[in-house]
């Protein structure tokens, strides 16, 4: 799965997610990626999210919208994504990751899997990582 979130210079946010699913999936199986509120969500009121990980788990907790609901309660992008991913781990034992950006430009890349390749550009500065806590 791949995804992107962005905020432009006028404060508008957007998200996109794209995937081939999981190897050997049943014909017709659809995971979280194309489902609004699960694989992605964007709202100028709270922010934009793109998710990756175990699709059925992400669907059950509507992960993207869950992260944004925490942000609407005042959590930072990093706190919100960590809390929502922890919730998914506890409730349905699913692992995954998310990238988040707020309308003010605050951002996070968080995951509970072994690794997630991510990159961000803020003010022309490139940030990137693969392993936890990078």
């Amino acid at each position, binding site marked *: 799965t791949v995804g992107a979130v962005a905020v*432009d210079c006028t404060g508008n946010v957007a998200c996109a997610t794209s995937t081939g699913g999981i*190897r050997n999936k049943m014909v017709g199986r*659809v995971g979280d990626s*194309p489902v609004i509120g699960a694989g*992605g969500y964007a709202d100028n009121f709270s922010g934009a999210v793109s998710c990756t990980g175990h699709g059925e788990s992400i669907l059950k907790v509507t992960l993207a919208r869950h992260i944004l609901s925490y942000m609407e309660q005042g959590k930072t992008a990093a706190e919100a994504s960590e809390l929502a991913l922890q919730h998914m781990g506890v409730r349905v034992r699913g692992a*995954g990751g998310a990238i988040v950006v707020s309308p003010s430009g605050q951002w996070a890349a968080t995951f*509970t899997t*072994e690794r997630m390749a991510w990159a961000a550009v803020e*003010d022309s500065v490139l940030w990137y990582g693969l392993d936890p806590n990078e």
Partner: protein
Amino acid sequence: MAAVIVVHGGAWAIPEELSKASVDGVKAAAREGFSVLKRGGNALDAVESAVRAMEDNNMFNAGHGAALNSEGEVELDAIIMDGRTLASGAVSSVKNIANPVSLARAVMEKTDHVMLTSRGANMFAESIGVVTVPTDALVTEYERNEWEKHKNYITGVMEDFNTKAHD
């Protein structure tokens, strides 16, 4: 305000031999998306551009390089959403499309619907002139080999979902 773009290339147990190419791929996609923002483009154009870059990169499980289903076929899913209007478009189980994210955007902009699936998504693609590609063009040798290796062990793969294998 300063524009920001963040991209991911999937959360899973990325093996060491794929790690450098994965990081290089997300860095290139982030730069591609940011170049759109830097030219004054909007957030929607930037995320589409960044995701297209990764769909075109064989390293990632989307577009070119996608995983194979139980019949050895490629079925692709994508979504795009505009936070300004809550407009959203998605496609699921679509075949022979190199850049599903752009087809999802067309669903958002050219139809009254939020998601089109399977044959309907492909019929819509054809109706708006989206070029199709042969399945083989989307499948890497690595993925074909991994699929051949694992196709008889679906139960094991399911049990391994949470530690190794993900969308």
